[in-house]
């Protein structure tokens, strides 16, 4: 990316992150950590890589996204809103009764959501099926972007799907693993040690890259690199921090699901929001 493009994408990331924080503080709780760690990824996908039409969410030539780590829906919704799939005001209806924005993405409720996820591990197989279908239908310009968590890799189904994707050389299924090193109950290495995720994916037959997950340039470059691979499964492991982008939340020990009940938490959120609003305002000048 040139300077101008980088500036633009960083502004997009700031907007998405701001939306996530505003959305979750508005309802008073939410899956903060894992939403924050995929902000830059969402920014690059919707800001640079994805083929989509917000006026026609079901456009047959669109790329598809499967957020297998569905609890990070807020990050996806923010990206979708910022991309024009629906009004930003709708973000504040997260989890409300009758909302089109449920906590875990639902393809039958939200424009721009292609697959329903939330029960960890299941999105991987759906993405595999989508990718295989695209290949069999000779839709050679389409991609499906599969986003998994590192804690999610505890689920055996992920490895069934990865084996399948590798066996069928579904290079059109770009697999992202958000390696934010934590899950609900603590650090992934203390829950069930994931060992070396990049090495695992390589041994499962994937051409695998591991990049900084908070650097839009690195993510964008990685996607462009894996798109050159035609005869092998591909994976990008994102080196991220759970709660990424706001130091207080990165350091918050239990940040998978946060309830903004204490003064300290509310203050930290308010400060982060103020800072991001400033960044966005400056960027728009």
């Amino acid at each position, binding site marked *: 990316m040139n300077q101008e493009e980088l500036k633009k994408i960083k502004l997009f990331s700031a907007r998405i992150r701001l939306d996530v924080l505003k959305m979750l503080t508005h309802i008073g709780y939410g899956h903060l950590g894992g939403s924050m760690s995929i902000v830059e990824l969402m920014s690059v996908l919707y800001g640079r890589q994805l083929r989509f039409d917000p006026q026609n969410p079901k456009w047959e030539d669109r790329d598809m996204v499967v957020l297998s780590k569905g609890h990070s829906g807020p990050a996806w919704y923010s990206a979708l809103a910022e991309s024009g799939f629906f009004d930003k005001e709708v973000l504040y209806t997260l989890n409300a009764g009758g909302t089109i924005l449920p906590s875990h993405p639902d393809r039958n409720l939200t424009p721009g959501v292609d697959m329903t996820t939330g029960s960890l591990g299941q999105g991987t197989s759906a993405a595999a099926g989508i990718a295989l*279908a695209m290949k069999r239908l000779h839709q050679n310009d389409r991609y499906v972007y599969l986003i998994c968590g590192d804690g999610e890799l505890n689920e055996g189904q992920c490895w069934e799907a990865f084996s399948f994707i590798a066996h069928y050389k579904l290079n059109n299924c770009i697999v992202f693993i958000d390696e934010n090193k934590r899950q609900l109950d603590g650090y992934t290495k203390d829950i069930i040690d994931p060992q070396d995720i990049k090495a695992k994916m390589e041994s499962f037959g994937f051409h695998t890259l591991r990049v900084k997950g908070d650097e839009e340039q690195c993510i964008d470059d990685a996607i462009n690199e894996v798109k050159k691979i035609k005869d092998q499964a591909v994976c990008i492991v994102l080196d991220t921090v759970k709660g990424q982008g706001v130091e207080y939340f990165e350091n918050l020990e239990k940040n998978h699901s946060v309830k903004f009940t204490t003064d300290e938490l509310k203050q930290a959120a308010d400060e982060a929001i103020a800072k991001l609003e400033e960044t966005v305002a400056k960027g728009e000048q």
Partner: protein
Amino acid sequence: MFKLAHDHNEKTKPINETVVKALQDEMDKDPMVVALEADLGDASGFSKIRASHPQQFVEVGIAEANMAGVAAGMSLLGYRPFMHTFSPFAARRCYDQIYLSGAYAHALINIYGSDPGFCAATNGGTHTTFEDVGLMRLIPHSIVVDACDDTQADWTVREFLKLTEGIHYLRANRKAVRKIYEEGSTFVLGKGNIIKEGQDLLIVAAGQLLADVLDATEVLEEKGISVEVIDMFTIKPLDYELLLQEIPGKKAILTIENASIYGGLGSEVNRVVAEKGLGIKVKNIGLEEQFGQVGPVDYLKKAYHLTKEDFIEKAEELLKGE
């Protein structure tokens, strides 16, 4: 229109072969029909589809959860998937995937769950399910069919492939069985078939026990008991209308299934009788607190009290009280 077989002792072709041929035929007509298999292709006959329609066949290996998810994913792009595995692996092992990635997501998965109930035979208890009917019924908007022979299985495959959303579960034996219907018979999804008229006792059954039920009714008729038999092959949605039409005037109802009576065909008949206050006794024959076990089918039918003699005994018992 259905026509009953002239001789219920005549054997059909192996049901799995018929299912495969039906799928191949439908695949010839439509490239969007796809079969999925979890390394049981030689057992189901789906290996023939791999040879005949390689672009419409997907081998997933021994990974049923993945198979269900892949099927759902493919359906999002317009494919109409038909997955096979043994009935317990379909119903229990990848239930959540069928439920969420399939039903809840409003995707489409057709399922051939083979060798249900005692049909697992020498594969034994680990390969047996009696609860598949109940489990599949519990999925909102699902369709559950228990096919009694190859003609009914063939028709069901084609009927399922007309549908574009939801979970459609076909339980059927793989082997050749005693013929119930003449080849070419057609049915109506959700409509039960009266396969024998009668006045005293109503038997509602489906699947692999129908032939034994017909044997039992022959004996009961000789004993002066007039029996009506309904093949309620679509267990969900059940033909409530037919029941409300046929129950009045009967002395008692016997439901018979190669499945658990908890949440199966019988339980749904009970519900109709109770809800409509039909004031008639119902006896559910099937499995209760039992696991599967190894053995040839005849042995298992005896062990689980699912023989013609058991049906006769229960029928007489039931009517004695009336």
